[in-house]
Structure formats: structure tokens, C-alpha cells
């Protein structure tokens, strides 16, 4: 009996798994996803779960969206400080608190949590037991800011590269498949976007948008970062459109859309995924660079780059550089390592060299 051979992606995964650094990078990104998902339960000043006046509430959801915070706490004038208000307004209440009692958006006042001192402000907030990563000029805890900023770092990578990947694949596929004047047009389009300095394009578009949010930034990074993907996709489609299986598909009457999507794209996907992974790393770099220059999302979005921006005016506050800087570095490194692992696992030319 013949043994059924493994599919391409199973093979690729087996090769990927053999690279310890690439696996460590994957684990690191998984850890970031966990931190981002459970950020309100890791650091915050709102209870994860509490029983108040006979009802169960989860005020910590307010960190995801203001509207998720139960209305009763606004009505009872909690004003964001839970520990004392819960005890005073309902002595029978209880609550499960986040692991780390610090808020990413405001300074924690003295005795807000029994026995906890006020966060130091200005340049006094060097790392201590209450604030392991220190506090910024406004007295906001850096660790809490970073935990909540993980969401931004992850979303920027995925959303902007999702957009860039879609545009790049569509433009490249159309140009490569149809060729001729269509290719001429798409190639010019790619060239135009490539020639304008990205940062300038982003700064100008951000200025035009009236109220830029983090989502605008992601969309713009995506809309300017697709050129490399388009060029690569075009090359792959040019190479594959003459192959026999494409001719066979055309012979049985498949339309161009079907041939491109069902026949060529799956075979071109592996080499395209590699620049997309590297693109995630550079999108994170671009976003934190923008925030660092002061063009980041407005508060309350906490981005790692905006913490760095605070250090520019006062270099003595080294903790504002060290911790977020290391976080950005490790995340970028992780994505680059994943991209490298993916390349080695899927590129047959590199594979043969290893034998």
C-alpha cells in the first residue's frame, strides 16, 4: 500500500519546528496575544469581576471600550475608583482584582488601594516595588501602559499588513496574470507609491484626517506598505501563469478569477507570506516611530512608541527608554525570526542547500 504523502504546509511546519529560534519567536508572539487579550485582568484598577448590590459585574471590560463598563457604577458616582467605593456603598460586596493594581491612563492616588502610596510624578518615578517599570511625567505606571499597549502593537502588525497584503496580492496578481497594458498600469502604480517617501505620505495623510485614531494610522501604513508584496506577487504570477496546470485549468473552461484564486494563488502563497511577515515587523516599527515623533494615536490609546516620546524631553528618565524600547525590539525581532523561519521552511532552494 502506498503511504499518503504529507501536504506542503505540513512539511513546512515540520521543518519550521526544527528551528528553535523561530519557535521561540512564535511562542513570544503567542505570549503577546495572551497579554493583549487579558490586559485588563493583568493590570488595571477596575475589578475583573465583582458582586455589587446583589448583581455580578465585570467593570474591567471598560478598558476595551468605555461603553462596556456597567452603567450602575457611573450612576453611583464611582468615578473610576473602585476599591473604596465598593466597600463604602455596599459593605457586602466583593471583587476579584487584576494581578497588578495600576492604571494605564491615570496616576494612582495615595491609599486608593489600602496601604499603596501615590505614584511619583515628574522625573521622580524611577522603578520601584510599586511601579516595577517606573512612572512617566504624569505619574502613570509604565508597566500598566505597556501591558495595555500590547494590543496596539499586535493590531498594528496584523491590520496594516492585512490591508497591505490584500492590496499587494490583488495588484500584483492582476498585473502578473494579464500582462500587457494592465501590467504597465499596475507597475506604474506600484512605482509611484514606492517613490514617495513613506513617512512623508503618512504624515501628510494623518494631517488631513480630522481626528486621527490608531485605526487610521494602521490603514495608512497598510496603504503605503504593499509595494514589495505586489512586486513579488507579480513575479510569482508571471512565472506560474505559463505552467501546465494553469493551461489545463484554462482548457476545462475556468475563468481568470477562478484560475488566479484557486490555482495560482495557493502555489504562490508561500513566497508571498515571507515579506508579509517581515512587513508586520516594519509596520510595528513605523507605528512606534510615528508615536515617538509625536504623531501617534491620541490618548487614551497607549502605544509603546508614545512612552518613548516622553523620554525625549527628559533623558534622565532612562526607564522610559529601556522598557518600551526593549519591548519594541523583541517584538520586531520575533516577527523577523518568524519570517526567516518561514522562508527557510518553504523555499525549496534553501532546503536543498541544507541537505
Amino acid at each position, binding site marked *: 500500500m502506498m503511504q499518503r504523502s504529507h501536504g506542503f504546509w505540513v512539511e513546512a511546519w515540520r521543518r519550521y519546528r526544527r528551528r528553535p*529560534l523561530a519557535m521561540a519567536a512564535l511562542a513570544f508572539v503567542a505570549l503577546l496575544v495572551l497579554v493583549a487579550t487579558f490586559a485588563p485582568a493583568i493590570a488595571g484598577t477596575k475589578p475583573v469581576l465583582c458582586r455589587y448590590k446583589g448583581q455580578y459585574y465585570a467593570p474591567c471590560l471598560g478598558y476595551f471600550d468605555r461603553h462596556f463598563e456597567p452603567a450602575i457604577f457611573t450612576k453611583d458616582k464611582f468615578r473610576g475608583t473602585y476599591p473604596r467605593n465598593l466597600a463604602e456603598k455596599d459593605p457586602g460586596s466583593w471583587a476579584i482584582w487584576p494581578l497588578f493594581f495600576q492604571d494605564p491612563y491615570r496616576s494612582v492616588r495615595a491609599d486608593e488601594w489600602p496601604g499603596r502610596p501615590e505614584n511619583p510624578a515628574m522625573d521622580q518615578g524611577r522603578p520601584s516595588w510599586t511601579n516595577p517599570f517606573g512612572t512617566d511625567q504624569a505619574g502613570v505606571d509604565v508597566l500598566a501602559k505597556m501591558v495595555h499597549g500590547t494590543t496596539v502593537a499586535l493590531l498594528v502588525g496584523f491590520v496594516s499588513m492585512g490591508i497591505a497584503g490584500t492590496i499587494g496580492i490583488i495588484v500584483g496578481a492582476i498585473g502578473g496574470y494579464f500582462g500587457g497594458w494592465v501590467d504597465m498600469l499596475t507597475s*506604474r502604480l506600484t*512605482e*509611484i507609491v*514606492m*517613490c*514617495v*517617501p513613506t*513617512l*512623508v*505620505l503618512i*504624515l*501628510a*495623510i494623518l*494631517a*488631513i484626517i*480630522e481626528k486621527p485614531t490608531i485605526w487610521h494610522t494602521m490603514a495608512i501604513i497598510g496603504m503605503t506598505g504593499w509595494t514589495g508584496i505586489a512586486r513579488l506577487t507579480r513575479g510569482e504570477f508571471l512565472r506560474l501563469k505559463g505552467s501546465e496546470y494553469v493551461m489545463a485549468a484554462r482548457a476545462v473552461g475556468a475563468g481568470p478569477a477562478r484560475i488566479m484564486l484557486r490555482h495560482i494563488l495557493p502555489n504562490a502563497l508561500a513566497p508571498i507570506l515571507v515579506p508579509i511577515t517581515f512587513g508586520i*515587523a516594519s509596520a510595528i*516599527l513605523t507605528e*512606534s*516611530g510615528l508615536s*515617538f*515623533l509625536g504623531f501617534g494615536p491620541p490618548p487614551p490609546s497607549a502605544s509603546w512608541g508614545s512612552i*518613548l516620546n516622553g*523620554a*525625549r524631553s527628559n*533623558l*534622565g528618565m*532612562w526607564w522610559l*527608554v*529601556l522598557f518600551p*524600547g526593549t519591548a*519594541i*525590539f523583541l517584538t*520586531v*525581532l520575533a516577527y*523577523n*525570526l518568524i519570517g*526567516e523561519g518561514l522562508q527557510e521552511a518553504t523555499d525549496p*532552494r534553501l532546503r536543498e*542547500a541544507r541537505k
Partner: protein
Amino acid sequence: MATYLLRRLLLGCVTLTAITCIVYALARNMPGNPLSAQMGEDPSRKITAEDYARMQRAYGLDKSWPEGYLQWAGNLLRGDLGRSITRKQPVTTLIGERIGPTLLVSGSAFVLIWLAAVPLGLYASARSGSIDERATSLLLYALYSFPTFVAALFLQVLFAVWLRGTAWELPLFGMSDLPADASLGPRILDVARHMILPVTCQTYVSLAYDSRFIKATMEEAIRQDYVRTARAKGAGPWQVLFRHAFRNTLIPLVTLLGLSLPALIGGSIIIEQIFTWPGMGRLFFESIRERDYPTIMGLTLMFSVLTLVGQLLADVLYCLVDPRVNVA
């Protein structure tokens, strides 16, 4: 070759028109204009409504952006890049002032990068797989992922705050602290001291990238049949590496050189902004903030021309280095 160049030139002109048109439209649609941006910074400069209207007319800001663009393009064809509105100087003069400092930093970085990247890449491919090579490669890889602005801040904290008062202290900002009439010797020394941190920041990322690139192309070359032939006829390992493999990696290297042209002259916006280095990148950033349309357009034109010329240069050099390749 001549028809190929002509074709590329024509296509380049089409691309340039599209780019400048898009950037002009974007620039003109940013909220505010050079006059309001200046007044926002300095309330004492408030002027009456009539004066404002008169100045708008004088600078052509009362026209719609398509009209303004046509006017800009017409002046360009006559060889006139216009005058900066906020700095009251011709754009060409401004660029001329800023190109020197940028070339100083990026040129030094460029020389350092290639002086170090070629030996590093060769070393890595010669000792491929050994422990010291893997450690070096990993270190270079980490450096490649290290964001420049984080590195710049680290270096600033290290050399300006922690080493303050020691012989190692380095200046943080600007290009020179000495007055313009200081004698040449101390001035050169002073500028050199100011250059160390920006040059370091600009060097390390490209160094890591380029040496990895050289290693990758070398590994590709080593697998070729002619290398096996060279080994078989008894050439030594270094001779194989230099005479046979490295020569053939020059082709992709030449492409890389061409593509690094815009960054070489355009400078880095972020690095020049952090170290307040008076170069092109900083001028670009400031002109966007000041809504100084003529300067934005002049710099955009320069960047795009450089990018296009870099690509063309890469393709043409490719043919010169590799006689097998035919552009047409």
C-alpha cells in the same frame, strides 16, 4: 540600449508627474497654510484680514490646488523650484545648505557600512556553520531588528546622561557648538564629535542587513557548479571564495548599491530629527509641519528622482557587470 534608456526616461517622467501631483494635492489639503502655521506659533505676528488676503494672493495660496500645481509644474519646466514661503529663500538654496550635513553623516555611514559589511559577509560565508559565525550572525540579526530611534535614545542616555562630565561625554544635538568664526581645526573636531552618534545609528542597521545579504548571495554562489569545478581542480578555499564565488555576488550587490542612493542623499528623517541634525530629512519634516508647499514639493521631487535614478542605475549597472543580462 539607447531605446531602452529613452523608454525608461519617458516612463519616469510619467511617474514623476503622478507623484508630484499626488503630493501637491495632499500638501495643499492639509489643514492650515504656511501663513496660519507661522501665526499659530507666534501670536505677535497676527495681521489684519486684508493683509492676510494680500499675502495669500502674493504666494498664490488663493488658487485651487490644480491651478497651483500647474503653476508649480510650469515654473519647474523653466528650471525654477520656487521660493520657500516660511524661510523666504529659494528652495534650491535651502537644499544646497542642507545637503552638505546630510552627506557628511550618510556618506561616512556608507563608507563604514561597506568597509565592514563585505569582510563580515565573507567571513560569515567562509566559516558558515561554526559557532563563532552563528554567534556573529545572531548578533547582526538582533541589531537589524533594533529600531533606530530606540538605539538613538539609548545612546543619548548613555553618552549624554550617564557619562556626563567624563571624557566620553558626547554632544546630543546639532552639528556644532562653536561659533562660526572659530578656527578650522577645533571646528572639524567639534563637528566630528557631533557626528559620532548619528553616524553610529545610521550605520548599524544597514551593516547588519548588508552583511546578511552578502552572506546569502555568497551561499547561493557557493552552491553553483563552477565553484565545484574550481574546488575539483584544486583551488584553495580562499581562492574559491574570492576569485570564483565573490565576483559573482557583485551583481546583486550592485543592485543594492543603486537602491540605497535615495537614502544616501535624502538622509533619515527620524535620525536627523532626534539629533536635530541640520540635514535634508529634518528640512522635510519641518516643511511639512510649516505647510511650506514649495519646499515640500522640491524635496519630494528630489527624493522621487533619486529613487527612479537609483533603480535605473541598478538595472544599467547590472548589464555592465553581467554581460549575459540584456536590458532590452
